[in-house]
């Protein structure tokens, strides 16, 4: 049986890890390579690096970062942020990333998911979805693009299912409402997406206490939990999270 995964997320801006609340008010959290190596050492199952600057100038920086991370981190890691083409994905995968995540570009051109899956295999392609509860229909969530700044009319649950059909190997699901609040994952959203797809779902946004991780896995049916604030600012170590989950009967790689 596969272990449930603990995945620290490193949002990278100008070569520094940063973390905000609801995608805003960024706070510095350290050097990405150092922090990545520390999490790997501490027992993280995977890492996610998101280039939140995602400009043409930052593209080169992120490739160099991926190379440095690959020399120091011996667990799988995903890179995302502003990826638009399979050529860009190829460069990142060759530089040492295990997987790439796409978000805005996949909404604009869903075929990108299929092209990437055919070329690199489904296991390399992560569909990242930033979702916000709809004001008009409170039982639905809408997909937001461009780092969450632009809401669309796309239903997040339907988009996840479509992403699977197109060839995504995994869904990285971020609740914008919960992001950075440390008040817990959006369990309803996580469960709705998990029930709609057969591929692994990574719950993201809102982790603040150990029981939040348990809720996302058991009530939200997530295969993996992603967190930033609670690890970067050292509220909890990866090992503490795993021991807690193991103690409550969740299979983890301890």
């Amino acid at each position, binding site marked *: *049986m*596969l272990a449930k995964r603990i995945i620290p997320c490193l949002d990278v801006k100008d070569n520094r890890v940063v973390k905000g609340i609801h995608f805003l008010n960024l706070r510095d959290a350290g050097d990405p390579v150092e922090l990545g190596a520390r999490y*790997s050492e501490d027992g993280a199952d995977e890492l996610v690096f998101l280039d939140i600057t995602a400009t043409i100038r930052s593209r080169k920086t992120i490739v160099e970062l991926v190379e440095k991370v690959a020399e120091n981190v*011996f*667990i799988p890691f995903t890179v995302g942020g502003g990826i638009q083409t399979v050529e860009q994905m190829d460069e990142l995968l060759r530089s040492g990333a295990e997987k790439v995540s796409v978000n805005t570009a996949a909404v604009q051109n869903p075929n990108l998911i299929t092209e990437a899956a055919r070329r690199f*295999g*489904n*296991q390399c392609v992560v569909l990242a979805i930033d979702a916000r509860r709809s004001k008009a229909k409170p039982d639905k969530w809408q997909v937001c693009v461009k780092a969450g700044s632009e809401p669309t009319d796309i239903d997040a649950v339907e988009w996840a299912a479509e992403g699977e059909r197109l060839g995504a190997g995994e869904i990285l699901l971020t609740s914008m409402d919960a992001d950075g609040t440390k008040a817990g994952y959006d369990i309803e959203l996580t469960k709705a997406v998990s029930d709609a797809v057969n591929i*692994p779902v990574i719950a993201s946004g809102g982790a603040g206490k150990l029981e939040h991780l348990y809720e996302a896995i058991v009530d939200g049916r997530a295969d993996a939990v992603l967190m930033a604030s609670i690890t970067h600012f050292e509220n909890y170590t990866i090992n503490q999270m795993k021991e807690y989950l193991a103690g409550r009967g969740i299979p983890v790689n301890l």
Partner: protein
Amino acid sequence: MLVVIDYNVGNVKSVCNAFRYIGCDVKLSCEPGDIEDAAGLVLPGVAAFGYAVNALGTAAEIIKKVARTGKPLLGICVGFQMLFDKSSEYGRHNGLGLVSGSVVPIPTEQTVPHMGWNQVKLPKDMDLFAGLGSEKHFYFAHSFYADVADNKAKVAFTDYGFDLPASVQKANIYGTQFHPEKSSKAGLKVLRNFAQICEGTNP
């Protein structure tokens, strides 16, 4: 010196990075001279089986020849699958035939690809796992698996709804379906053990 076979597949660089990190002298090469002079060979691979076999090209014969002289060889992921006779991934392809068995799809009752950390039961008599205890998690990412048919091969299994072969050892031929280069401390220990096997200082 270990030689990591260089043949334009995904994880070649990660495998070199991991060996260098643990202080091993590795060379990335596909030159017959280097392959013959190496203390041990590593055959990585992230690709479809047929693509990998084609990319390997004439180096396959040299690897087979050198492996038969007793030089340690470690296959990883698709490199592991290529140790066997054949595969049915996108057509029929022949492997190196160093271990008897065939590479077949993971049954569809399971989620495919088999991707993530799974626990491997580690037989005491498999040298790659020396010092690792009786069970450890390793990182897997694959859609086909090797159905081992060689009664001379020792096999370590992981549970994925059935006993899935995670590693084999047959004399000087070693292989892991999982990625030791991405399996954190336990994975690095497997690579260190292989390096020691190559140096003749058994782990």
